[in-house]
């Protein structure tokens, strides 16, 4: 399916390439993990892009928009750079988009100025990326942005002592730092901070540590997928949940595509995040409908799709402002301060940081009448900027 689409896109690009000069085709290169262990995230990129183009047409001010997908299965900076270079030099794209992992984004940003090409990041969530080039715009989130409101939430839940448990890798350490800062500012105490090795399969010893620490709640951050499932199950089975210990986390842990597997084990878990597929708004309803059609299986839809959807919105606005001409600086200037209503709620591009300002929602994993689980939004923190950038 993916391969066929990619081939189709490549073929389309070739066919159109010959007549491009006359028809004014603006090409957009999207880099994402379309195969391999993270293929689901790439599929979501593609669904978001296709949904946007299905709803808003394939032309902007008379310029045809052509999307070229490039597959980068796992974090690989050297390959990311090579793919970006190829897109710019060979395929002559005017815009780059996508990018799931931070190291890949960091490898691409040094090229932008010379290539006269803006990069719109659909996911890669480390604050520092924005500093590496003035031609980067981001429509996803940062770990600090989604984690910070959690500090207050935990206090509001009457919890004063928390143990932080994160996977020992970049985003995990970011989350630990952001939570600690926010929680201690709100008057809480982080009694212990544990960093677990990435390939932990059995979490019982960690749960024993949690029990011994005497904390009233756990703050956790792990990469989504098998590890999260194991972690949440161990939390229940060792009796921590029953004993009343609460579990808080950023929404990465309960992304919609994992919820059917997590199921009852995660019920009641509180997370903060920028987007839930169940978000109640007319914009989101339209989006979910279009994106579900694009992705094929609605159960696979999760947050990267909305980053891609809004990313395409930004790219369309850039094309509009430059009237299809290649002018990266003008394009980026045009979207600084841009605000619109995204499927996730009201958002804007911060003029200083070029990072998205958005609402962060507190959600509870809730069972619906039909037996499926959703992230039910129960509280809104409006217009959150990226505190990670402000701090540095």
């Amino acid at each position, binding site marked *: *399916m993916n391969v066929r689409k990619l081939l189709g896109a490549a073929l389309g690009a070739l066919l159109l390439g010959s007549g491009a000069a006359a028809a004014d085709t603006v090409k957009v290169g999207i880099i994402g993990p379309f195969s391999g*262990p993270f*293929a*689901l995230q790439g*599929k979501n990129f593609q669904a978001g892009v296709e949904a946007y183009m299905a709803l808003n047409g394939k032309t902007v001010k008379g310029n045809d928009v052509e999307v070229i997908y490039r597959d980068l299965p796992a974090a690989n900076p050297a390959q990311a750079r090579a793919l970006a270079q190829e897109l710019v030099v060979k395929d002559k794209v005017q815009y780059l988009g996508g990018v799931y992992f931070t190291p890949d984004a960091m490898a691409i940003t040094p090229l932008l100025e010379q290539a006269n090409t803006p990069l719109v990041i659909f996911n890669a969530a480390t604050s520092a990326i924005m500093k590496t080039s003035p031609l980067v715009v981001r429509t996803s989130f940062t770990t600090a942005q989604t984690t910070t409101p959690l500090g207050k939430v935990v206090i509001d839940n009457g919890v004063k002592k928390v143990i932080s448990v994160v996977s*020992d890798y970049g985003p995990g350490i970011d989350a630990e730092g952001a939570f600690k800062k926010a929680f201690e500012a709100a008057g809480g105490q982080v009694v212990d901070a*544990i*960093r*677990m*090795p*990435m*390939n*932990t*399969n*059995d979490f*019982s*010893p*960690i749960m*024993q*540590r949690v029990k*011994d620490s005497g904390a009233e709640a756990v703050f956790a951050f792990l990469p989504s*997928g*098998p590890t999260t*499932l*194991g972690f949440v*199950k161990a939390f*229940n*089975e*060792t*009796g921590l949940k*029953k004993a009343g210990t609460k579990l808080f986390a950023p929404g990465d842990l309960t992304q919609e*595509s*994992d919820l*059917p*597997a997590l*199921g009852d084990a995660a019920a009641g878990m509180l997370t903060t995040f920028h987007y839930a597929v169940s978000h109640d708004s007319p914009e989101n309803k339209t989006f979910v409908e279009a994106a579900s059609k694009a992705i094929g*299986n609605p*159960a*696979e839809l999760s947050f990267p799709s909305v980053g891609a959807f809004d990313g395409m919105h930004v790219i369309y606005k850039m094309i509009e402002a430059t009237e299809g001409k290649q002018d990266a600086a003008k394009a980026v200037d045009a979207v600084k301060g841009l605000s619109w209503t995204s499927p996730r709620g009201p958002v804007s591009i911060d003029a200083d940081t070029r990072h998205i300002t958005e609402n962060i929602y507190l959600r509870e994993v809730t069972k619906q009448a039909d037996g499926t689980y959703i992230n039910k939004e129960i509280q809104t923190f409006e217009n959150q900027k990226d505190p990670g950038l402000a701090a540095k």
Partner: protein
Amino acid sequence: MQTILSVATDAFAYGMVLFIISIGLSMTMGLMRVVNLAHGAFAMIGGYIASYVARDLGWGYAPAIVLAVAGTILLCAPLERFLYRRIYGKPELLQVLLTIGITFCVIGITNYFFGPTLKTIPLPSVLAQPVDIGFRTLAGHRIFVIACGIAVAAALWFLIERTAFGIKLRATVDNAAMTDALGVRTPTIYAVAFSIAVGLAAFGGVIGAEFLPVEPYYALRYMVLFLVVVTVGGAGSILGTVVACLALGAIDTVGRYLMPEFGNFFFYAAVIAIVSAFPRGFFGRAQ
């Protein structure tokens, strides 16, 4: 004291999970002398079948286990007949290339048909509940896994050491030409042994799914772990695999409890130390 007991219980339970998933590989590598990197793929196929039977068809856990084991053996029988039979007794490199290729094919096929999301195998309510064992609660399915591990170890030991089939299998492994000459149908012996190993892989994949969740990359993700267990225990030795699993489970669990920030340091340090002291693993036989 209670903490020590509690961590010890966790270590024991984790060790038994390792055992139940790795014993099939120990059998193929030790008794059949095939470096089978597709072992994880077989375990994963079992997991997928069980998930389909228990979750999508809703037939329950016990039928899921039986069908998963039977289904995986059936699916893999043609592999044995047409692929594995060519690599018995061939150089390891050939075996590694063929079996890693099979693994990639299985990953691609499952990804295509079942999608990249996690699949769960719903447990019956008896196993899903935490059980109070006096000083703490332990998940019901862990106790089940421990019981299964002990049963599998005992049954395998009996099969290999005490039955006519076991004698023929050991003879075939030691000298296939001579065994053939004595009138034993060695291809049949190999096919049956392979089926048993595949069945054990599937069984482990299903029972262990609570620890190692089923998804397409299962086949590669845990392969190193399985190989480490077999290497430390000594390929082909049931007792060796049990000892290796309990030792590694204990080191890993205690390491993670005391110093999680050291990561897998203790685990691999122990592996290096054990393999240096026992180059063939704890109870590996001289080749």
